[in-house]
């Protein structure tokens, strides 16, 4: 086992979690089968990073997060969060991390939001001045004032999520774990939440680990991206590195008045595909600007329309999920600070 670097907030080495699943194999017989949800994850997250943790359903994201927060015991490997082993030190760790599970609530259902916050101050023994200051900041940035006195059960999902995030931050956690924080939110709420989290992450005070299926969350928030599939890390690095590794390129889509007899050759540009009997040609740019290609096409004439497409993260990730896990992940490259 490797020793965690001194500035590591989270350090996992060979982290595993197996579940026993009982299957019906006869009229009365059931056989236990071990299924591994997390299968040897190595991960080091340093102070102040914002890391996006993505993967298809059942890839082991939530399981990993549960192990990191101390509510699930790892089957194997080593794991420390804030220098503590999560499960045996769960209560101490609870004071130092904030957790939001998008589909669970940590607020008191029957009480107004304001009461929940006041209660959390006592539960976490937060000095009154710190509490007031943090709450004030969240109230302003997340616009809580309109529904601070509404019982939690009457809040809309977007309002509740803003409340949940506030609740997770009131005790000044060192790490904030967010499990699908934008799930089910409308576009405006998502946008507001992302803006808040981006701001929080940019200050570098709180380390943020976020799982999501919404790749816009990742593009907006996470300089570093960890992709898991079948319980293993298949990519750990920047978004750009992901594009590079999986050959996602910018594309130029050209609509023509009439098909060319001969497609032009420009260095660094390949023809990706030809559609519509040659009336539409899609070029893939291999790291070169689009200008050269477009100038060349303009010379040839008959150009009706041109569109430049940025590489699509959804597409890359979809490809990542559908390919079988072949190679182990490359060593993590240092994430670019926001």
């Amino acid at each position, binding site marked *: 086992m490797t020793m965690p670097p001194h500035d590591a907030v989270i350090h996992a080495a060979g982290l595993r979690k197996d579940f026993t699943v009982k299957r019906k194999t006869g009229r009365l017989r059931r056989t236990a089968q071990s299924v591994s949800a997390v299968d040897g994850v190595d991960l080091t997250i340093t102070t102040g990073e914002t890391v996006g943790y993505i993967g298809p359903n059942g890839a082991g994201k939530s399981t990993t997060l*549960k192990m990191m927060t101390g*509510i*699930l015991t790892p089957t194997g490997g080593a794991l420390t969060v804030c220098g503590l082993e999560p499960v045996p030190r769960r209560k101490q760790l*609870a004071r*130092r991390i904030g957790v939001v599970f998008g589909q669970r*609530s940590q607020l008191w259902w029957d009480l107004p939001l304001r*009461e929940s916050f006041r209660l959390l101050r006592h*539960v976490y*023994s937060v000095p009154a001045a710190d509490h007031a200051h943090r709450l004030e900041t969240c109230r302003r940035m997340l616009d809580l004032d309109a529904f601070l006195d509404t019982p939690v059960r009457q809040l809309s999902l977007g309002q509740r999520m803003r409340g949940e995030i506030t609740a997770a931050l009131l005790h000044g956690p*060192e790490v904030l774990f967010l499990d699908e924080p934008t799930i089910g939110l409308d576009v405006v709420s998502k946008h507001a939440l992302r803006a808040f989290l981006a701001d929080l992450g940019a200050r570098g005070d709180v380390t943020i680990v976020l799982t999501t299926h919404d790749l816009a969350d990742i593009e907006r928030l996470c300089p570093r991206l960890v992709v898991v599939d079948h319980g293993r890390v298949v990519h750990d690095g920047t978004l750009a590195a992901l594009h590079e590794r999986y050959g996602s390129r910018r594309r130029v889509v050209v609509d023509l008045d009439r098909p060319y007899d001969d497609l032009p050759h420009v260095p660094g540009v390949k023809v990706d595909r030809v559609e519509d009997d040659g009336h539409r040609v899609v070029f893939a740019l291999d790291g070169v600007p689009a200008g050269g290609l477009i100038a060349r096409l303009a010379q040839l004439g008959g150009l009706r329309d041109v569109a430049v497409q940025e590489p699509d993260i959804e597409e890359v990730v979809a490809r990542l999920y559908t390919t079988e896990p072949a190679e182990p992940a490359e060593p993590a490259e240092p994430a670019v600070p926001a």
Partner: protein
Amino acid sequence: MPFAAACPKSAPDPHSAPDPSADPPDRRGRPRPPARRRAADAAAGFVALTGAGFRRYATYRQAMVAGLFTNIVFGAMLASIMLGVAADGRTPGGYSREQLVAFVWVGQGLLNVVYTWGWRELADRVRSGDVTADLLRPVDPLTSYAAADLGRAGQAVLGRWIAPVVVGVAFYDIYVPHRPSTYVLFVVSVVLATLVSFGGRYLVNLSAFWLLDVRGPVALWMLAGALLSGSFLPMRFLPEWVQWLLWCGTPFPSIFQIPLDVAVERTDGALSATTVLLQLVWVIVLFLACRAVQRRAVRRLVVQGG
């Protein structure tokens, strides 16, 4: 505008000497407060959770009124039965007419204070996986649920206990305790009865970690509670050997029969105090059992879904 950075961290208490046994400061150099401060914080947390339990239940006013109506109707029915049973100067179970009437009316209010009904809050949270939120707090769930339940009981004293007692006093010839110590002992006994009831309910709910569906165990608990706690009829109507078995072998009489016997002064002061001690024993036994079972439950925890 900095967020957490601008938050003044709690300054270390200048009066506290450095404690060599204290935990090391965390990564941000926040010192762990001394043990006495921690105890005070824990007590403040308990009080806050109790207050929250009180307010949570105080929000359901209509349910309270409906429940009160039921209690008073049942109280009137039971009281007329008891008056018949104790007619002609008979003293069934050693109770006078007035004591039996008091037993009924104080008891109708007490049902909801100690809460003998089916309680499934923890089990539901285990089933839905919301129990993770409880485990992610720095307070033991047993402590926080116990605090909330005491708050609930406090609310029930105001909302559900006073009115039936007032009805009893206003319309019936009711026994009024004459020993001043009874009033103090009754308060202690009701708090202990609530804790015994809570301990039992919590233990039944913990089975959700294994069973997921606890309707069966909860129904069993309710049935046993109804029959054996004295809420249908005073346990003293039963043969003496059965009473001994129930009082010492089950927690049920400690939930209902004991505080009511204290209230109607069924026994002398010393014996009443002894029965309250028996309640305390049951509180300790049940809480130790809850703690042991919870430890095993959490160890085998696999949160459903997610």
